[in-house]
């Protein structure tokens, strides 16, 4: 058993080995990823250069009947922000990784040829991926499963946009996509996919408690879970329009969301998630998961036609781009066009076919728009129209929810997916529980589960570790050139919630609560 070991892969030399680091024993899950990234990247490295590393850690609850906790965390210097990059994917990969016994996988270097990794318990092989180039993530996954004759594999993969190093390229797995431009890091290493299977038993210390809590938590999740379509429907009247310049009308949102619901094919979940968390919609023979990303593409670009939205999100998934980013980048392009800039695209608010063409075009990685909204804004001198935090395009819930807006401003990665209480949300991400299960889990539940899994840690120590991880991420960002002014929001969001001095005070209070100096750095 490789209990808690790290799998080290160097794609340049092809060397693969395992190691165990005593310093890492203190950390787990999301915390381990942060600790390791900070350790591996000391200086200011190029996020899509050979020196960046991609780190994957598995969660303490994966492989067990603990609802929506089959997580992995992916960590790297973000090509989108230049700061701490992280995101979490849930499902088969996390479960399989937990059964291999590896706590983490570290991938460094750039491969000469396109490859994918195949990890079968203790054996890791680097395989040729020439035939997978250009394929969508789901086609890539299908081909690898066929080649290995195993439908149960956990697979994460990138699409064309990742290969082309588009700065908001995603890593895809089980109907979910990562943010932070992590797909571009994989692409820069010529790593098309990672497939994993593990066969070891998982034996928690106190299975009775886990099974008892499984029932209780599943029930709570069922009662409290809200999927993206219902969320948008409930938030109508507050949702943004046209690059966050205004509010989408009640009737437009009803038209879009109602239309999407009429086109629902099925709801699915990822492994070990007891609620159907993703909605698949169908239009013209196309099936796509519809998430907040696709909804944003519609709302921010003046398109309330469900068929176009399904096609747009489908394209994002197929090409491997974060639809939340694509929504903002396209809306920014529309605004430039509106003010009369020559941008090389015939786009505009409400223009459907042009939008779809724009999406295909930016996935090729050759346009300034492929470098993210922050880079594009610099080129066109339109910073006030660029809706991002630290370079990460804003999710539309920053417009409707003050806690998400503030959480985004003070986040290390430029995005925030948690709930109202930042501390609980941090703990969920350390434990790698699905952020949308926020309303089902209390901190006490997490501590209790953690003890039941068999880790010798009390609540107090876990709390300490959680704060330490927050420090580590901040330390990482400071080394990458972070300044306090980065912890902010565009005016169009700010004016929804905060007077400037109120925001600054709130930020200062938060820094103080973390024990940080007034300028936000570590004391």
């Amino acid at each position: 058993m490789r209990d808690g070991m790290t799998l080290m892969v160097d794609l340049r030399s092809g060397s693969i080995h395992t190691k165990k680091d005593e310093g890492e024993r203190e950390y787990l899950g999301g915390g381990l990823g942060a600790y390791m990234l900070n350790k591996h990247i000391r200086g200011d490295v190029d996020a899509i250069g050979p020196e960046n590393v991609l780190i994957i850690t598995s969660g303490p609850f994966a492989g067990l009947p603990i609802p929506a906790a089959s997580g992995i965390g992916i960590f790297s210097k973000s090509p989108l922000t230049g700061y701490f990059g992280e995101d979490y994917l849930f499902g088969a990969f996390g479960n399989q990784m937990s059964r291999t016994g590896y706590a983490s996988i570290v991938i460094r270097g750039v491969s000469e040829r396109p490859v994918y990794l195949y990890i079968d318990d203790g054996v890791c092989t680097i395989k040729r991926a020439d035939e997978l180039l250009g394929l969508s993530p789901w086609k890539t996954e299908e081909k690898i499963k066929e080649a290995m004759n195993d439908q149960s594999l956990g697979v994460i993969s990138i699409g064309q946009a990742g290969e082309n190093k588009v700065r908001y390229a995603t890593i895809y797995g089980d109907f979910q996509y990562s943010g932070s431009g992590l797909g571009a890091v994989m692409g820069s290493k010529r790593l098309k996919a990672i497939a994993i299977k593990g066969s070891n038993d998982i034996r928690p210390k106190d299975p009775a408690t886990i099974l008892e809590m499984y029932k209780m938590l599943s029930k709570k999740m069922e009662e409290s879970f809200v999927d993206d379509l219902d969320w948008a429907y409930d938030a109508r009247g507050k949702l943004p329009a046209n690059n966050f310049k205004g509010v989408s009308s009640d009737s437009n949102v009803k038209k879009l969301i109602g239309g999407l619901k009429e086109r629902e094919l099925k709801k699915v979940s990822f492994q070990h998630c007891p609620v159907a968390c993703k909605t698949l919609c169908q239009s013209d023979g196309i099936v796509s998961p519809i998430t907040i990303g696709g909804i944003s593409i519609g709302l921010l670009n003046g398109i309330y036609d469900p068929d176009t939205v399904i096609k747009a999100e489908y394209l994002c998934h197929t090409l491997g781009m974060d639809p939340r980013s694509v929504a903002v980048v396209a809306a920014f392009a529309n605004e430039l066009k509106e003010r009369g800039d020559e941008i090389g695209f015939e786009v505009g608010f409400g223009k459907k076919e042009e939008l779809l063409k724009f999406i295909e075009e930016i996935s090729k990685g050759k346009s300034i728009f492929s470098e993210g909204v922050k880079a594009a804004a610099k080129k066109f001198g339109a910073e006030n129209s660029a809706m991002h935090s630290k370079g990460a395009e804003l999710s539309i819930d920053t417009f409707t929810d003050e806690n998400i807006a503030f959480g985004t401003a003070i986040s290390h990665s430029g995005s925030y997916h948690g709930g109202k209480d930042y501390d609980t949300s941090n703990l969920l991400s350390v434990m790698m529980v699905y952020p949308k299960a926020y309303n089902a889990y209390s901190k006490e539940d997490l501590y209790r589960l953690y003890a039941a899994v068999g880790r010798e840690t009390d609540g107090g120590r876990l709390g300490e570790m959680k704060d330490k991880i927050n420090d580590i991420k901040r330390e990482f960002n400071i080394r990458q050139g972070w300044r306090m002014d980065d912890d902010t929001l565009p005016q169009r969001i700010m004016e929804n919630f905060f007077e400037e001095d109120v925001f600054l005070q709130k930020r200062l209070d938060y820094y103080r609560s973390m024990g940080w100096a007034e300028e936000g750095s570590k004391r």
Partner: protein
Amino acid sequence: MVKFIFSDTDRCIGCGLCEIICSWHKEGVFNPLKSRIRTVRLGFADIAAACRMCEEPPCVPQCPSRALTQREDGVIEVDEEKCDGCGWCAEVCPYGAINIHPKKTALICDMCGGDPECVKACPTDALIMVSQEEVPKYLRKDLMEIELGEI
């Protein structure tokens, strides 16, 4: 009418919790490789498959070690002394409902004596006990035939 465990395609979301619940109750560990029920996604249909207790089960006569016998209630029993894990039964099962334990014995659903643990644990109530005649009612062939896009 013999009833077995099947999944309602309209309700099954592919969470796979039935597999680890089964392995826990039968083998005392969490590991889907040791489950007597298996989940699979065909097209967009999530399906959980367990032994259908066929009237004339092809697995029983195929077993070279004569380790399989069918009880009167339909359950196929595995004689663990005789079974050497060759996997022929799994090969011939038309429903892919037989797993081979990594330690080499066939794993076949025994309905937990009539009150299956996976059915009780299914979070979406997708697992049901049905007879062979009722299967088409719960199987959405249209979902199985849809493919994810090209490129």
